């Protein structure tokens, strides 16, 4: 009985949709966004979704080019003075807000002071910690107007640093360093913006529509009529919507679908190295883990990274032999020396080191491996536990914790033994990773404390160029010997991009501003 109405109804629905799709402007790009952005206020935004979206509607002194490299944005050019301790920015003459007002140096000063005002409670203000007096202001010892940023004249801005930071310009492309107009400040619904697009409609967890901002300095180069971002939490849903033709670019691909996509959508699949690595942290306050370097090395060598990356993960991830992932200009990561051996040799080494460590004198070691709830982490943990058992005879108890519980336990370090760790760079520099293991870093969940390592990092802070990179490399070499963390694999970025989208380039930072995108419109 139900066949008749269905037959009439469904083709009708299809027709309506086809018509609807045809009337949608062909030069609108539909992008998956991942989760709903946590906030579109520049001082509250933390998640990747929010930061990516903010980079489309606002712009800092620095922005990114099509291949994700930092290039001048609202600044036309800058000078680096006093050995990297002072930056002088000349703003673009055509830098304007969406209401037509010029963007002035004062707009930056206003925004930065606001970021450091206690009432704002900007979680990402720490990214600007190298700016003069920033630490003191964060600690409440100085007022926000003591911050090392100064408007020389409306078109000239000066920023002073406590310490030279070669990667500093890249930070200026983060929303926390963006300017604010005096009207509405960063109210995401009413404030003027200075980016390539502006928001025309925002339905939480459904869609965010953008239209080009005619006042943007490069408005003439923008090919799109609009961008629609869809917050889609579930990667499988995102894939279904992509396959149904509702999306042009996805935020990710579902776990376990890599091989299928390689076979069925090879032209759409974009997998590229990404500035992130995954590792297992070892809590060095644990009696055995802390006492025996041999044990830590044995644990690291017993893991077959090829199997982890290719079979357990299988989405283009690369076996990881260092904390710092490859790809940072001027830096070659210090990989574990055994990375060149065969897996069989590594396992032989692992067994020898394990015997030397003497931890198994009174029976096999029992370790706890803690990870936060996620299918991928569970699979990795199971594989690692199996490898430890097989190669070393170490027994592993897997402990799965909800995210908030996990991050707390990891920080406190009272119950952790081996735990999931990993990091995605805030900026393309080895220190973004190495700083995590400084003795008194709040992010050092291993409680690793090596004065030689700390000293190399602080000497690198005073050095420049190749010499600096060499010191950082020496520091990372210490990590491969002391092994406070066991590197497992390097992250990759994963997207589906329709072949008719151009102006999209895979890159290490995985930043793809909509202003460069174009659509070939022959489909409709």
């Amino acid at each position, binding site marked *: 009985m139900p066949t008749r109405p269905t037959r009439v109804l469904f083709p009708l629905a299809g027709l309506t949709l086809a018509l609807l799709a045809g009337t949608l402007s062909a030069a609108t790009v539909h992008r998956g966004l991942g989760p*709903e952005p946590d906030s579109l206020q520049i001082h509250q935004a933390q998640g990747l979704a929010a930061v990516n979206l903010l980079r489309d509607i606002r712009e800092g002194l620095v922005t990114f080019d099509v291949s994700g490299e930092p290039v001048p944005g609202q600044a036309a050019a800058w000078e680096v003075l006093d050995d990297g301790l002072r930056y002088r920015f000349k703003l673009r003459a055509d830098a304007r807000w969406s209401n037509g007002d010029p963007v002035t140096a004062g707009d930056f000063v206003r925004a930065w002071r606001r970021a450091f005002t206690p009432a704002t409670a900007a979680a990402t203000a720490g990214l600007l910690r190298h700016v003069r007096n920033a630490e003191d202001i964060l600690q409440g010892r100085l007022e926000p107007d003591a911050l090392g940023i100064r408007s020389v004249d409306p078109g000239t801005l000066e920023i002073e640093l406590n310490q030279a930071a070669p990667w500093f310009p890249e930070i200026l492309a983060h929303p926390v360093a963006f300017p604010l107009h005096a009207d509405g400040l960063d109210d995401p619904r009413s404030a003027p913006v200075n980016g390539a697009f502006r928001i025309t409609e925002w339905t939480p967890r459904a869609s965010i529509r953008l239209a080009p901002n005619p006042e943007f300095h490069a408005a003439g180069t923008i090919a799109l009529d609009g961008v629609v971002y869809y917050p889609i939490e579930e990667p499988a*849903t995102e894939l279904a919507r992509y396959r*149904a033709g509702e999306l042009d670019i996805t935020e990710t691909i579902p776990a376990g679908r890599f091989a299928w996509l390689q076979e069925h959508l090879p032209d759409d699949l974009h997998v590229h190295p990404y500035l992130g690595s995954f590792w297992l942290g070892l809590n060095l306050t644990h009696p055995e883990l802390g006492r025996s370097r041999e044990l830590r090395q044995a644990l690291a060598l017993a893991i077959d990274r090829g199997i982890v990356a290719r079979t357990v993960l299988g989405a283009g991830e690369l076996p990881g032999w260092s904390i710092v992932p490859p790809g940072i200009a001027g830096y070659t990561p210090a990989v574990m020396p055994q990375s060149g051996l065969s897996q069989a040799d590594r396992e032989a080494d692992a067994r020898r080191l394990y015997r030397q460590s003497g931890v198994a004198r009174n029976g096999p070691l029992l370790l706890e491996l803690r990870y936060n709830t996620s299918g991928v982490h569970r699979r990795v943990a199971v594989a690692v536990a199996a490898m430890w058992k097989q190669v070393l005879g170490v027994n592993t108890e897997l402990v799965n914790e909800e995210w908030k519980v996990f991050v707390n336990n990891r920080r406190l370090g009272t119950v952790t033994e081996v735990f999931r760790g990993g990091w995605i760079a805030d900026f393309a520099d080895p220190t973004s990773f190495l700083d995590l293991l400084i003795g008194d870093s709040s992010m050092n969940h291993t409680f690793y404390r090596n004065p030689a390592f700390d000293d190399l990092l602080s000497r690198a802070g005073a050095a420049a160029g190749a010499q600096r990179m060499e010191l950082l490399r020496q520091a990372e070499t210490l990590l491969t010997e002391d092994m406070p963390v066991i590197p497992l694999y390097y992250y990759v970025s994963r997207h589906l991009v329709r072949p008719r989208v151009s102006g999209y380039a895979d890159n290490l930072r995985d930043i793809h501003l909509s202003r460069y995108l174009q659509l070939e419109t022959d489909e409709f």
Partner: protein
Amino acid sequence: MKQEGILRHAATRLLGLIPTLLVLITIAFFLIRVAPGGPFDSEKALPPEIRANLDAKYHLDEPLLQQYFRYLGQIISGDFGPSFQYKDWSVNELIAQGFPVSATLGGLAMLLAFVIGSLVGIAAALRQNSAADYSIMGVAMLGISIPNFVVAPLLILGVAVYAGWLPAGGWDWSWQRMVLPVVTLALPVIAYIARLMRGSMIEVLHSNFIRTARAKGLPERVVIRRHALKPAILPVISYMGPATAALITGSVVIERIYSIPGLGSYFVQGALNRDYTLVMGVVVFYGVVIIVLNFIVDLLYAWLNPRIRYDETQ
């Protein structure tokens, strides 16, 4: 049915709502605080100053009891406070945006389930123990046992991805985007209602007053419609109260799979993110919806079942 009786009953029930809600708020408030971790715990440890500023901004630095009474005060004025996670929105705004979506989907699904479920159930009851009855109940059993996280992806794959008849997900208030989620939501409810309806219809059809009606020579059609339907539908009605409440406040699974901005995800997201205000907001809201719907069911019951009188002290 006496008018004053109903009114008095209504007033008592509405008054009874207050202590129920108070208990609900209290338990929910302290339960979520017992969970380890807080709204501002994340991968990157916040500098202590920023952390202190955040705590002060959201009054998390006050003693818990003081926060509890502050929260009660807020709720009385109808303000659920700002969301910790979605910082650009207040909990009131999030509920105001999510509830109409969930209520539309849930309402349509309930309507569909009620109509189809009852008809199918009656049809099965009238052909008790026939092949038709067994096949209907077999299908219904399948409908109950296949979880919607299996049904939904299959529907998406078949109807949206391969056939291209309907969108695969998302939300813009168009009917095309409602069809799949409504059907997915309705399927298990149809099955459940069909089974309920069949069971009670069979029972009613065997009762004396039906035999009397038939003995009077009334046509079967009239017997069913005028005499059997009303008492037979009672169990369905009492099931529909909580079921409707569950449907119109959204389903996490359906919302995730179809990427629908309804209310259901907030329960899970809010709890996982320790978004205290959001969790409290949706819990209180859900509590009110359940109480109101159960109340409506009670009234319907009284109307359908003359044996229930609210003016009698039982």
